[in-house]
């Protein structure tokens, strides 16, 4: 396969160079009552060859951060501060034509809903060929051949015959495979998967996760996987960032996060995953309350109003993300967790 020949960083470089480095990104939305902050100075990064999971409940700014980073959101939503460096260049300052080369060319996207994310009046093969013709300057015949290979790569049976199908002739799982093939068409360095399994049923979800895992290993790209389902991505990602109200509250290698969840919000998320060993009568655990609305962010820690461990200081000051332990790979933004560790 053509793709494997490309020069890719070795998986051992996971701790090394940052491919994506978001610093202090602040995103505001224009409302009737003036601008409201949705994402407040978020910091996150993805190393070359690394898979990052971004986890949080609905409306905490997961997709928003990724989409606005690529300037894919409507004019009402604006990045007001901060930078998002991709391979050393700030996406926020880039010209539109440079940004278009990054989109689709270097950064592939997979979206949440495969039912509506494909153009209903265009054949699958054409939709796959579009980025190849545009970014790679392929002829129509070359692009079609490559499109067939891509469909085979994502495991669509009878790939070549499917090129002339319209999206409505495929099942949801097949469409998501097509979306993945489109995202991968130009052999991107980074694949952003925005809740790609939410609209699919459980057996298909696992297939899609396995497929992306397989392709990542084959092609050596970095992946950002946005989800609210911690359990789903446990076997896929290297590192997890837990987002709450537009800030990273915990950043940890996947094993460390499951072994030692430190932020009360992460603990709450993990506790709310039902276990097979639970008794039938066990009530599902949940976190009371809802995330703050944009424009009504609390003064201190954004999670404080819902936090079972909140103290006076939590309502006064915003905790910063501090490393726990010796190497500082596990970081948490919580006064209580940080103090506990110092005491230990």
């Amino acid at each position: 396969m053509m793709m494997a020949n490309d020069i890719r960083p070795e998986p051992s470089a996971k701790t090394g160079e940052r491919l994506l480095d978001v610093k202090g990104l602040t995103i505001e939305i224009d409302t009737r009552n003036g601008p409201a902050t949705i994402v407040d100075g978020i910091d996150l990064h993805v190393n070359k060859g690394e898979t990052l999971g971004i986890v949080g409940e609905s409306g905490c700014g997961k997709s928003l951060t990724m989409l606005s980073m690529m300037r894919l959101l409507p004019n009402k939503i604006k990045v007001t501060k901060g930078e998002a460096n991709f391979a050393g260049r700030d996406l926020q300052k880039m010209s539109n034509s440079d940004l278009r080369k990054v989109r689709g060319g270097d950064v592939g996207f997979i979206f949440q809903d495969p039912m509506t994310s494909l153009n209903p009046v265009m054949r699958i093969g054409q939709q796959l060929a579009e980025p190849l013709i545009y970014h790679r300057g392929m002829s129509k015949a070359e692009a079609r051949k490559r499109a067939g290979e891509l469909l085979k790569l994502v495991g669509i049976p009878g790939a070549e015959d499917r090129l002339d199908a319209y999206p409505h002739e495929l099942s949801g799982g097949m469409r998501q495979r097509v979306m993945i093939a489109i995202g991968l068409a130009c052999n991107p360095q980074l694949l952003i998967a925005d809740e790609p399994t939410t609209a699919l049923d459980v057996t298909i979800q696992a297939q899609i996760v396995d497929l992306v895992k397989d392709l990542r290993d084959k092609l050596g790209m970095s992946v950002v996987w946005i989800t609210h389902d911690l359990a789903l991505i446990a076997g896929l990602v290297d590192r997890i960032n837990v987002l709450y109200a537009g800030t990273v509250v915990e950043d940890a290698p996947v094993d460390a996060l499951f072994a030692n969840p430190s932020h009360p919000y992460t603990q709450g998320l993990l506790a709310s995953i039902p276990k097979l060993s639970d008794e039938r009568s066990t009530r599902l655990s949940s976190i009371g309350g809802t995330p703050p609305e944009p424009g009504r962010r609390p003064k201190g820690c954004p999670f404080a109003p819902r936090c079972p461990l909140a103290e006076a200081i939590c309502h006064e000051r915003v905790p910063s993300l501090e490393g726990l332990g010796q190497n500082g790979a596990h970081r948490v933004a919580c006064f209580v967790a940080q103090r506990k560790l110092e005491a230990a």
Partner: protein
Amino acid sequence: MSVVPMPGTAAEIEPPVSLWRDAWHRLRRNKLAVFGLAVVVILAFTALFGPYLTPYDFLSQDLNSRNLAPSLSHLFGTDDLGRDVFSRVVYGTRTAFLVAIVVTFIAVVIGVTLGALAGFFGGWLDRIVMWLTDMTMSIPNLLLVVVINASLKSPITSWMESRYLATLNPVYRETIWVDFLLVFGSMALISWPPYARLVRAQVLSIRSRPYITAAQALGLTNRIILMRYVVPNALGPLIVAVSAGLGTAMVLESAFSFLGVGVNPPTPSWGNMISDGLRVWQHYPHLLAAPAAVLGLASVAFSFLGDGLNDALNPRGAK
């Protein structure tokens, strides 16, 4: 033992059905739409070939057989100059189609371009386009066309005549084009706003669909997204509107001919035939009935076809 096909495998084997073929199947099941389509096809055929097949020339006069009632030799009778009404109605079909197609084409090109740009880019462009459409729609149609024709026709014609006398260039000799240009131009001018509004509304709703964001995430240019993702998805309602619009344009042309600002005699148009027939309808009703019936039939046929297309192209609305 009977072989039961496994569910799910049928879809694997079946050849891909395109949206258009699917729509065609649905259209064929709709009786009114099939009627409309048949009438439109017959009229189109008449417009193309009819003038070569009629027994009489539409201009030849026979003053010995004036105002004859319909008979076998003159299907729709003859008019006050002894011209065969059937031949004139047939030739009028050509005029009606010519006007309807040219006018609708110009109106659709203007409307789709402005509407798509306004809907896609929004902002000041949208405001200007909407302001233009509102302004155009607020002016009474007939008045605008009458004013344009009355005020522009004679100055342009006399300018061309003076140019011809000065240069002897044959380009300036044929002033019949001015007539057509003004009729087409002024009708297109009043016909584009509904298309612009329709397309703008479509584009506004399509612009926020996930596949547009997905296309942007692929790094495609606005031009490609507009041409290949937005406009094709807005096409269904537009086709319906065009089908109905063709009928409307025919009626409009007749209205203008009736008022004397449409296609000029001796070119037969249903409108000026109706206008002539109306003066003597108490004595020779066939002179009014023939062109009016054909115009009505054409208008109804286009409208049925439009409705049928609407159902066929909108699978969710059908059944």
